């Protein structure tokens, strides 16, 4: 009896291992559906866990701050928020100037007007430390194809208003919309790619635009590649996301934290970017919906 049980156990193990090896060859489009199914089933529990973690973390954050430190933190936060808003508004104005310059007689929508934001909560994360993915609690069952793959995702600074799009920053893209949940790929995930603009910091008073490709690295840092050395890039310059299909106006990603000449291609910069937000602590996001139309759970502006 024991021998028969042992043999059946070994057989079952052999079958499941064969299944796993076969599953390695399945296309991502199929296996991602299974992942989304599991996420959909578990998301109510994750949502409950998120509520618990928010209840625990919010009182703890105030424990070790003195009065002076708290005031300083509030001021710093307000200053950061203003800085973000300022950079985004600069791009809006530049676009307005361009349109007016073309002397169009048609009614114009500038910046993020005409774009809807689908508000979502971050309810879970990738169970592996190797990837920086988050699970959002909105899916195609409610929004249809308005949540698209590669859609840009924004998030406000801590304490920011979800209805004020110009106080938000780019934090990633939707990598896989599912029926009940969607997967957000953060900027610092190793597979992340996004076209970006680099503009000089406001205090430099210079006027040029460099283009590059923002890439997430496997150690969680963010770099920008393919920026030529003809541009006088410096630490503190602004990095903006540019994606005409998914973002009507460039939006802030962060600031340059380090720039050196690339070892492998000396005519290019090796740039490291500091994200404007702490990507590990985002809890509410807005998915940019370029399809138009009004609906519940969206923010208009």
């Amino acid at each position, binding site marked *: 009896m024991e021998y028969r*049980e*042992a043999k059946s*156990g*070994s057989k*079952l*193990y052999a079958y*499941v*291992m064969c*299944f*796993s*090896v*076969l*599953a*390695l060859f*399945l296309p*991502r489009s199929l*296996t991602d559906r*299974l*992942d989304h199914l*599991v*996420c959909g089933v*578990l998301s109510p*529990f*994750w949502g*409950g*866990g*998120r509520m*618990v*973690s928010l209840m*625990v*973390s919010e009182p703890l954050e105030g424990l070790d701050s003195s009065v002076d430190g708290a005031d300083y933190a509030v001021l710093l936060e307000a200053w950061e928020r203003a800085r973000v808003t300022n950079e985004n508004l600069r791009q809006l104005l530049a676009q307005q100037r361009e349109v007016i310059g073309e002397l169009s007689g048609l009614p114009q929508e500038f910046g993020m007007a005409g774009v809807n934001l689908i508000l979502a909560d971050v*309810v*879970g*994360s*990738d*169970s*592996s*430390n*190797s*990837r*920086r*993915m988050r*699970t959002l609690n909105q899916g195609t069952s409610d929004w249809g194809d308005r949540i698209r793959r590669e859609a840009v995702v924004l998030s406000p600074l801590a304490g920011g208003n979800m209805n004020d799009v110009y106080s938000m920053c780019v934090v990633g893209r939707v*990598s896989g919309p599912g029926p009940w949940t969607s*997967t957000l790929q953060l900027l610092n995930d*190793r*597979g992340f790619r996004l076209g970006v603009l680099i503009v000089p910091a406001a205090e430099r008073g210079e006027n040029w635009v460099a283009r590059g490709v923002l890439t997430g*690295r*496997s*150690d*969680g*840092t963010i770099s920008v590649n393919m920026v030529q050395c003809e541009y006088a890039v410096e630490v503190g310059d602004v990095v903006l996301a540019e994606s005409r299909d998914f973002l009507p106006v460039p939006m802030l990603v962060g600031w340059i934290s380090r720039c050196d000449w690339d070892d492998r291609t000396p005519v290019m910069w090796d740039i490291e970017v500091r994200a404007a937000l702490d990507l*590990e602590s985002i809890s509410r996001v807005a998915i940019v919906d370029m399809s138009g139309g009004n609906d519940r759970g969206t923010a208009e502006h």
Partner: protein
Amino acid sequence: MRWISFGILVVVTVIVQSGFGRLLGLGPQRIMPDLLLLWAVVIAFRGNKEQAPLACWLLGLAKDLTSSAILGSYAVGFGLMGLALVYFRELLYGESALLLILLTLVSSLLVEHITLLFATLRGEFSRQEYGGALKVILLTAILTAALSPYGQWLLMKMYRQFGLARRRH
């Protein structure tokens, strides 16, 4: 192995790991211990010889379904790790915490490298990124290994519910 209790353990662990595990993470990147691997090592170290590899496989599958890894990569890694540990545990003496820490460390490194290998073969990971990935893998392995004695203690408190042997033979 009591499979219903084991199933509850897997579901609870997945909810903790993916739900609010990041809150417990260390450093700016919130590195979390790999709780699923921790249970797999303890069960492979202590569990029934025929059922432990299957249990490890199920834990790997749970990790596959809640991560962005290729489906089957963690399942294969956990399954092979479980099988290897079940066969080699006879060569190991004692139940000391240091032994479990070393086993967990080696297992975590092995499983993550198997997963990276599959990702490389599928074109989802390039060798240039290995340096950065290794940093994260090492930190995860160290953190998981440090928690492994506590994980074993917790699981052995409920050894009857999980059908584990109270002592190693």
